[in-house]
């Protein structure tokens, strides 16, 4: 979803070639390690955007070389982009893999929940160290965008650590409470309600 609109926005900035768009996208999102896109995905997106009439394709003649295709944004595309900016982004917090692991550790009796928490805590600290190191390697005078992105990562990791502390402190309480169980529904076809 975002790749499509990012491409659209990059074309609003100026007309570009396909190969150039991929590099531009990866630069914006913080490098190909963070979010890499395959060339095929870029070209498929460009094709869809062209079909939708959001962008137009232009051929650039070159001497002694095959002609290059340049993409421009169309009026419809500009409108779509404006709509995108008016829509908030849904962030995923509720669906949490670690939470599931911890709950299963509590009910299965196989893993030690405290160890599960500590393993995660150590991993988060290591991630924070890596993010901090990378952040310090950037110069705020010319790489502020990368620094801000890493700040966001660090703030989220910090929040995760805080949550681990709180959860660990209340682990005994959680254990004493029945964990969520599904409601048991009768099997088979539901009976017709009698009036």
């Amino acid at each position, binding site marked *: 979803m975002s790749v499509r609109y990012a491409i659209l926005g990059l074309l609003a900035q100026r007309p570009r070639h396909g190969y150039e768009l991929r590099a531009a996208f990866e630069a914006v999102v913080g490098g190909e390690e963070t979010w890499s896109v395959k060339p095929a995905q870029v070209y498929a997106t460009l094709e869809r955007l062209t079909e939708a009439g959001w962008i137009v394709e232009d051929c650039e003649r070159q001497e002694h070389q095959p002609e290059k295709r340049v993409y421009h944004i169309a009026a419809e595309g500009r409108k779509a982009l404006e709509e995108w900016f008016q829509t908030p982004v849904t962030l995923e917090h509720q669906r949490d893999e670690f939470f599931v692991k911890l709950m299963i550790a509590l009910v299965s009796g196989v893993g030690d929940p405290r160890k599960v928490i500590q393993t995660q805590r150590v991993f988060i*600290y290591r991630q924070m160290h*890596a993010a901090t190191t990378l952040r310090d390697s950037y110069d705020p005078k010319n790489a502020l965008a990368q620094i801000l992105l890493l700040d966001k990562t660090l703030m989220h990791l910090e929040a995760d650590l805080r949550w681990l502390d709180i959860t660990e402190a209340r682990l005994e309480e959680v254990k004493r409470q029945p964990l969520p169980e599904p409601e048991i529904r009768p099997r088979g076809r539901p009976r017709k309600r009698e009036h």
Partner: protein
Amino acid sequence: MALIEAKNLTKIYGKGETAVTALNGVNLAVSTGEFVAVMGPSGCGKSTLLHLLGGLDRPTQGEVLVEGQAISGLNDDALTRLRRRKMGFVFQFFNLIPVLNAIENVALPLVLDGQPAREVRPKAVAWLQKVGLSDRLENRPDQLSGGQQQRVAVARALVAEPALILADEPTGNLDTRASDEIAALLRQVANEWGRAVVMVTHDPRIAAYADRIIFLKDGVIVDETRLSDGAGHSVLTVKEKAEAL
């Protein structure tokens, strides 16, 4: 050999029924160039540990070794000398002298050690430049921001060329940005300038700068984790790092 080592370090305050065990059999070794963070809830014994390592307090049991030498055998004078020459301290509230400017504050430990004033000044200036305060040399503490004051304190801790820096909540009184700068500076002190740094903090974000974290709880080390190889390189695999960021 470890630069500083704690062996079975125990500290009990009070006697009999009112006795409180602040530290219980802690073992720890820190090498040159290593940045170690000590973390834990308040009252876990982390400040006690730092005070014992720095010879500011004496253990009930166990031993602190600096470069292999037990410091418990030293009398108060010898201990003071050892602290002045081998250790630098950084505190939460900077502890600068208000009437002295940055150069004079940094030079103070050398002056107290009896070094002549004309030799002391260039050393103080050099350290202030290294911590990024070339343009604040003549400013008094009240003319400096919190972050800048803490930089002066770091320069002061380093001026006697100690092998060990002990920092007690060095970012506890700073905003986020200044905290990050001081933590990055302490990392540089260890990894680039080859000092051993032991820092007590309750702030996870600041602890994440360290090469190693020691988790203390109720006076006992409950866990220990390595974050970097000691040269500031993350211990995460490339794949883990990519997924994390």
